[in-house]
């Protein structure tokens, strides 16, 4: 159809016409947010365990939303880790000497102290990209890539997720898949499982040859395949529920090349330290339920996760957050958010805090890593956030973490009974986040 009026003038003519109708000067302009601009989030996190590991982490996240509702998300994370980590050996009534994982030199642990390897120092750079696109009216596809590099570790990953909305978007079913391929090349190589840690003078001419005999290879590979099914349901206008099931299969080199196990005699005195050995596959499954409830002004978020794997580890996690709006007292939309998290796990079937020398023969898998032992942990924290300068969100988070490993039913023997074998770990976590 042809229009006798050039199209371009219609808006101007309407401006005049509506000004006449409404008696306004009509100088106001309609403004909408530029939906094609980037949104940035930055965060700095500090994590410090008393006497152990300290970590600093900087994150910058950039998100761009396109006209067609596609979203591109780029996230760069840089973290540094310094300090010491338990090497798995038990405390002794005497001074102990251990060889560094690189084979270059020794470190000494005082009597009654938990042996800590103080060589941890690493910087990790991580890049994640995610592309989300609505496929059809109720289908949203998301695909992503992951790259993480540290001095001795490279992790590459891909993921995809499909979300299907139905019942007027009150219900969402989602299914996700991810695959990671990790290469681990620690300095000093990968130790042979269950082989004795070589202790001695690393400056002697025969050292390098002898040390090399404890080594299996220079690098190892690990792959992780995750499958996730999720269901989210709006219960009513104040409540939303989410249920997830995930299946994760990890294959390849799953031991920690820096961890050892103390071999003790019947008096509990260390006779030898051997490198740990873990199975080359692990199947983890988990069920996760989350519920968010919006009260008049507060929002309560509670979740529970039940995880089990074929190493016999079972864990329970309860996480809860309560968001309390403070109105505009401390900046616009300011809020306080108390956080409480409880975690409990049982030990892997091959976990032993130490092993008696008579029992070493015939053993296939063994680890004294407290992280796969029996433990309990909780976190309490508080977050404060507010919008400043009109649209930038600033938040502070401070948390206290306490982890209490327990013996898992393995009784201490001899001198070990008088030593602290399961030291409690405490950490402080601080985080500042700024969105712009």
């Amino acid at each position, binding site marked *: 159809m042809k229009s006798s009026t050039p199209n371009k003038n219609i808006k101007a003519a309407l401006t005049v016409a509506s000004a006449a109708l409404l008696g306004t000067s009509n100088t106001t302009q*309609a403004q909408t947010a530029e939906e094609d601009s980037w949104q940035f989030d930055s965060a700095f996190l500090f994590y410090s365990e008393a006497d152990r590991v300290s970590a600093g982490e900087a994150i910058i996240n950039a998100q761009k939303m396109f006209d067609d509702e596609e979203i591109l998300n780029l996230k760069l994370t840089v973290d540094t880790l310094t300090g010491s980590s338990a090497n798995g050996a038990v405390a002794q009534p005497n001074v102990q000497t251990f060889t560094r994982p690189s084979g270059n030199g020794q470190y000494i642990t005082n009597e009654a102290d938990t042996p800590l390897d103080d060589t941890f120092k690493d910087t990790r750079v991580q890049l994640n990209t995610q592309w989300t696109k609505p496929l059809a009216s109720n289908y949203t596809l998301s695909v992503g890539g992951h790259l993480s590099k540290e001095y001795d570790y490279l992790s590459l990953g891909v993921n995809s997720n499909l979300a299907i909305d139905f019942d007027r978007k009150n219900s969402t079913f989602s299914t996700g898949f991810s695959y990671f391929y990790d290469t681990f090349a620690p300095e000093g190589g990968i130790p042979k499982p269950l082989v004795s840690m070589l202790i001695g003078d690393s400056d002697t001419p025969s050292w390098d040859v002898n040390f090399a005999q404890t080594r299996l290879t220079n690098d190892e590979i690990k792959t992780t395949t995750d499958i996730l099914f999720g269901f989210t349901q709006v219960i009513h206008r104040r409540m939303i529920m989410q249920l997830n099931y995930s299946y994760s299969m990890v294959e390849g080199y799953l031991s920690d090349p820096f961890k050892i196990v103390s071999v003790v005699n019947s008096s509990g005195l260390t006779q030898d330290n051997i490198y740990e050995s873990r199975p080359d596959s692990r199947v983890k499954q988990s069920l996760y339920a989350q519920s968010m409830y919006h009260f008049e002004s507060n929002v309560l978020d509670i979740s529970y996760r039940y995880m089990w794997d074929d190493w016999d580890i079972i864990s329970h996690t309860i996480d809860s957050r309560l968001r309390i709006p403070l109105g505009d007292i401390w900046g616009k939309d300011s809020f306080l958010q108390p956080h409480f998290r409880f975690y409990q796990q049982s030990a892997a079937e091959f976990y032993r805090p130490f092993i008696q020398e008579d029992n070493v023969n015939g053993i296939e898998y063994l680890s004294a890593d407290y992280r796969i032992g029996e433990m309990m942990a909780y976190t309490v924290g508080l977050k404060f956030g507010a919008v400043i300068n009109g649209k930038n969100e600033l938040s502070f988070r401070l948390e206290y973490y306490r982890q209490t490993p327990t013996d898992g039913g393995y009784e201490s023997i001899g001198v070990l009974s008088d030593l602290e074998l399961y030291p409690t770990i405490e950490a402080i976590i601080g985080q500042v986040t700024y969105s712009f």
Partner: protein
Amino acid sequence: MTTKKFTISQCKDSHSISFNAMASPCEVIVQSTDAKLVGALAQVICTEVWRIEGKYNRYDPKSVCSMINTNAGQTVAIDEETYLLLDFAEQCYQLSDGLFDISSGCLRKVWSFDASDNIPNQADVKKQLKSVGWRKINLNRQSITLQKNMEIDFGGIGKEYAVDRTIRLAKQTTQKPVLVNLGGDIAVTGSRHNNTPWQVAIERPDVDIGDEKSADMIVSLYSGALATSGDSRRYLLNGGQRYGHVLNAKTGWPITHAPRSVTVVAPQCIQAGILATMALLQGHQAEQFLSAQDVKFWARR
């Protein structure tokens, strides 16, 4: 008739005033915790919306609109407000080259958009078309004269006009940020506190699937208005051809190949509404039309 009452509820730092008017659910959001102010504002806004509804609702026999229609063939005296609205409608008629015509309402007597294949015959359409045409209407500042059997209705502009009027009243009543939403036609007095935008969800008028409805797009509005035209549930299907409910006032037939809905952002709601409706009237050229107007818009097909 809608019941004339409103309800007020509080959510965080804002109050929401809900009421029904113009056959639509309406909502006013005030970013204030002052219940007294909100109550006063609710009174002012609802009174104005119901006043406009009562004056221009063609189904209300006591309305000015009905008075004009029932006296078709005679000259009817009109007040200033009615003149201004009719004058605005006339300009829209001219700007759209006759496609937008507030006298085209009687064509609905032969078109019932009930998703059936109920296509009227050309003779019936032609017959109704005789009663359509703004050119046949005589308008001046004091009076209007319709030809016999003609009818006008304010359907395409009344609700948007009410939005702009209430925004004006809201600005006179309070400095607090206010959003007025009359059945999807929306305007704001300005940005929210600290210069943050209002987040407005635009519903996808989902097709063919019963009452399937979903808010699927969020628009950030700092100032001005937005209006949506189109209703995907009102159409006819015949021989694979979909006839949307927007009628070409010149041919008496529905516009084909138009988007199912068009949302336009403009300084005034009435501008946004007319641009959206005019765009629909351009059929397959709707997007091209809006692009040429240099306005922010979303067209759904």
